[in-house]
């Protein structure tokens, strides 16, 4: 062995009271999600807001499928980063490699779990998929390439990449020693073994890059090749899915890296260069996506069929305008934040130094009216008239903008906070865009002369989705409490 670990690094196996409280809170939320799902399982999809398209004026795909698409998108980051680091020798990004790989695995598990509640009879759906899936259907590709191939490839990559660290950690006596020895599977870190791992990682990276592009395109084809569904039928769906997957995935990776940097106090390993590099990549992806969006809207509103125009108008000025413009605003604000590091140093020095405290106060204040509006929108509250609801919504927007403006000077000096803020903004936008892809074409996109429909998720759907997020956080935290979040061997060798 080239290096020897004296104690388990990165907080492995150490549980504080605060962490126990966090895990307990996450477990409660997961339990609530399971309870909500049990209600749906017993009573059927009638407890959700999902209804037949046209005849019942609803949408058969709602929150579940929107978040399935979102989670698959998030999964893009991990394996892409791992493959890019390997193929282009981006050694300075290695510290985020493992957290990105784990993000892929967790996100794909959540994606699989998001589809299940959409099926009235989940067990029948699972069996029939393996038995009768049609190879011409994009669903076939989605489930074979995304759920099986992509998840399996990510697990293989994560496993093989972690063997060297597992072998190092297995030298340390402790309750997890057996687990590390099992993971290491006889790895002894000889030059031959290292060379072999390099070869395997390289070929895996080569195999994974086309797989992930195919996988995300296939998911885009689920929508993009439906000729009878205005708003979905578009050549840009597949590339749009790939780019938005990159935006949400890289964004979430930035947030996770910033949290890990703060929690583990690893400023040297998770240095600012990582955030600058990922931020620039994110900036390019957002600009590409915005370009796709403008092209798509120009095409459909300029010369589209009247059904296409109806969908576009429902986004631009109609029922979904708040969500559409909210998502666009979040993307534009993220662009502004990501451009801050490119300000000339002289100009940046002239920006007054302010504390982010007031910005946080306004941010929290914005959440109060936003939550009230959301609860009333979900029919969980009936406190306000439509006019008062609109007023509250605008108040939330004003407070959020004020928060953003007050935060800008701080973000211009802190590239880590800027990356994390942009990451949060693009993920809010990604969720909004996923909902906009899935829902409006079902409620407003029927070719038959049905009246416009509507879709409002119920508490059951919201609880299940929130429970899925909590499950993801729980899996992620627990994994990094038994396995190092960054490569140990690299840090140990650096120290020597």
């Amino acid at each position, binding site marked *: 062995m080239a290096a020897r670990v004296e104690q388990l690094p990165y907080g492995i196996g150490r549980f504080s009271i605060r962490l126990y409280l966090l895990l307990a809170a996450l477990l409660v939320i997961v339990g609530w999600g399971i309870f909500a799902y049990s209600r749906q399982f017993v009573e059927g999809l009638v407890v959700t807001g999902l209804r037949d398209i046209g005849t019942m004026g609803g949408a058969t795909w709602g929150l579940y499928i929107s978040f399935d698409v979102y989670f698959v998108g998030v999964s893009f980051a991990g394996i892409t980063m791992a493959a890019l680091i390997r193929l282009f020798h981006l050694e300075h990004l290695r510290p985020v490699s493992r957290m990105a790989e784990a993000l892929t695995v967790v996100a794909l598990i959540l994606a699989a779990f998001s589809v299940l509640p959409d099926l009235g009879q989940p067990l029948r759906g699972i069996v029939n998929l393996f038995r009768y899936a049609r190879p*011409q259907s994009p669903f076939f590709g989605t489930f074979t390439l995304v759920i099986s191939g992509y998840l399996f490839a990510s697990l293989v990559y994560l496993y093989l990449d972690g063997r060297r660290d597992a072998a190092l950690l297995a030298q340390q006596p402790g309750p997890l020693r057996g687990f590390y020895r099992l993971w290491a599977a006889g790895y002894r870190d000889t030059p031959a073994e290292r060379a072999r791992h390099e070869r395997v990682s390289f070929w895996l990276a080569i195999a994974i890059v086309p797989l992930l592009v195919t996988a995300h395109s296939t998911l885009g084809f689920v929508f993009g090749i439906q000729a009878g569904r205005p708003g979905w039928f578009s050549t840009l769906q597949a590339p749009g899915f790939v780019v938005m997957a990159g935006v949400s995935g890289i964004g979430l990776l930035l947030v996770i890296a910033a949290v890990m940097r703060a929690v583990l106090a690893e400023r040297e390993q998770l240095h600012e260069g990582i955030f600058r590099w990922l931020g620039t990549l994110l900036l390019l992806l957002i600009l590409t996506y915005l370009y796709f969006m403008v092209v798509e809207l120009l095409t459909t509103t300029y010369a589209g069929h009247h059904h296409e125009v109806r969908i576009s108008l429902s986004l631009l000025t109609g029922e979904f305008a708040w969500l559409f413009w909210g998502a666009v605003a979040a993307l534009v604000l993220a662009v502004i934040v990501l451009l801050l590091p490119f300000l000339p140093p002289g100009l940046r020095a002239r920006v007054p130094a302010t504390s982010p405290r007031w910005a946080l106060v306004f941010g929290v204040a914005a959440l109060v009216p936003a939550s009230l509006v959301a609860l009333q929108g979900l029919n969980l509250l009936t406190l306000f008239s439509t006019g008062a609801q609109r007023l509250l919504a605008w108040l939330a927007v004003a407070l959020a903008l004020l928060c953003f403006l007050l935060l800008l000077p701080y973000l211009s000096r802190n590239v880590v906070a800027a990356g994390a803020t942009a990451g949060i903004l693009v993920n809010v936008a990604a969720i909004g865009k996923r909902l906009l892809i899935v829902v409006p074409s079902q409620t407003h996109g029927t070719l038959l002369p049905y009246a416009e429909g509507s879709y409002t998720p119920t508490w059951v759907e919201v609880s299940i989705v929130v429970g899925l997020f909590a499950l993801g956080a729980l899996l992620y935290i627990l994994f990094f409490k038994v396995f190092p979040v960054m490569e140990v061997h690299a840090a140990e060798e650096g120290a020597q």
Partner: protein
Amino acid sequence: MRATLAILMVIVGFALQAVSYFFLAAPWGIPSSPVYSNPRVPFAPTLFILGVMLVFLAAVVYELLPDRQAQ
């Protein structure tokens, strides 16, 4: 030995994908009934998935198989 086995697994994996997709599942000819949209052999999609997994499993076999010298 190690390389041969890994390459063999990759070839068998891709072959399994091709056979299950084109010969056991994909519809050939003119559709005549709704059943036509089902794969001709039930569980052909499962075989395809196993083919995908076999290809990636080759990487694990290649890395984990012990050296003859080490033995």
